């Protein structure tokens, strides 16, 4: 932000909303099984629109906000550079081509759904996909290591949430405000002002 001294070496930036659209389209189309694995690599390592530190901060906010994380992230980055137009361009890039790809795949699947091999293949992929989602949760566990509430309280909250949602099938609309609110409140009391 400072205006003094020599100009800082030019940071790569998206050149236009079109650039944002094309970049996020390309990013999204690489993301088989989810974009999260690709997004850091593409934005930080290749495009260099963000440093690693900026990426972590943005990612934290993208996770706090409701809605798909990668979609939130694209909105935030687009908004920062070109305002609402940028946000819409990045969002459209993230969704348009992948949406067409998903529909095409669904139509192809309908054509071949009477082959038992195709049904079987999809059943196998579904079983793997369920495992991948579980793993995505398990990979976040280290984030609890330095949690203000301590590991036992975190574990109790997590187990309670799992029982309510997975075993008792209580609607999320009840669980999230009550249990989530409790968790935030407990954390608030533990954090230093």
């Amino acid at each position, binding site marked *: 932000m400072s205006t003094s001294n020599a100009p800082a070496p030019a940071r790569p930036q998206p050149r236009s909303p079109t650039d944002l659209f094309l970049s996020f389209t390309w990013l999204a189309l690489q993301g088989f099984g989810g974009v999260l694995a690709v997004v850091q690599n593409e934005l930080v390592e290749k495009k260099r629109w963000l440093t690693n530190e900026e990426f972590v901060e943005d990612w934290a906010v*993208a996770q706090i906000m409701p809605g798909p994380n990668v979609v939130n992230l694209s909105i935030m980055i687009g908004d920062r550079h070109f305002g609402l137009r940028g946000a819409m361009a990045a969002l459209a890039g993230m969704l348009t081509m992948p949406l067409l790809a998903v529909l095409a795949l669904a139509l192809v699947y309908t054509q071949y759904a009477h082959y038992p091999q195709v049904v079987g293949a999809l*059943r196998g992929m579904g079983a793997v996909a369920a495992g991948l989602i579980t793993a995505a949760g398990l990979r976040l566990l280290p984030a609890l290591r330095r949690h203000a509430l301590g590991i036992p309280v975190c574990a109790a909250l997590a187990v309670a949430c799992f029982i309510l949602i997975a075993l008792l099938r209580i609607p999320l609309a009840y669980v999230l405000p009550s249990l989530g609110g409790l968790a935030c409140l407990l954390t608030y009391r533990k954090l230093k002002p």
Partner: protein
Amino acid sequence: MNTLHAISMQAQDWLHLFLHFVSLSLLAVGGAITTVPDMHRYLVDQQNWLTSEQFNTAIAIAQAAPGPNVLFVALFGWNVGLNAGGGWAALLGMACTMLGLLLPSTILTSVSTRWGHRNRDLRAVRAFKQGMAPIVIALMVATGWVLSSAQHGPRGDWNLWLLTAVSALIMWRTRLHLLWLLGIGAILGAWGWV
């Protein structure tokens, strides 16, 4: 998705579909995937607009295709529309689920992003971020559980459960690209091993 599951959708049903996804949008902390158990409860158990098989197929297809995982939500709407009678209804269903799920969260994100970035050291912001962490993690594990028990069924196919558990373990513990796992799952399924 091959099974015929004819339903009839009135204008108020479309509105319900839209509003239900609107209500889920602001609850989708930690990603759309954390609302999957509730979507299953609503679309399959309560309204009977989708079969359990269609529900799981939609997620598997969205996982197999490139792009954000949230697109399974578009397929839910698409399939509800197909069940209700065809192409235009499918587009309408897709608009209901996708716009419903994305509009509120998108608006909220655009409005509050700058505020959140400016106030990231605020006690309340940190408390929310940290406090939600164990809940978000448990929700993701619960999602895997709900998906498994929905598709592996009451018959208790041990080999499907095993495949799920092994792929979770590999994904958790190694850096193997998930495309390999999905590919292996497809081959095992096509050969009728699982």
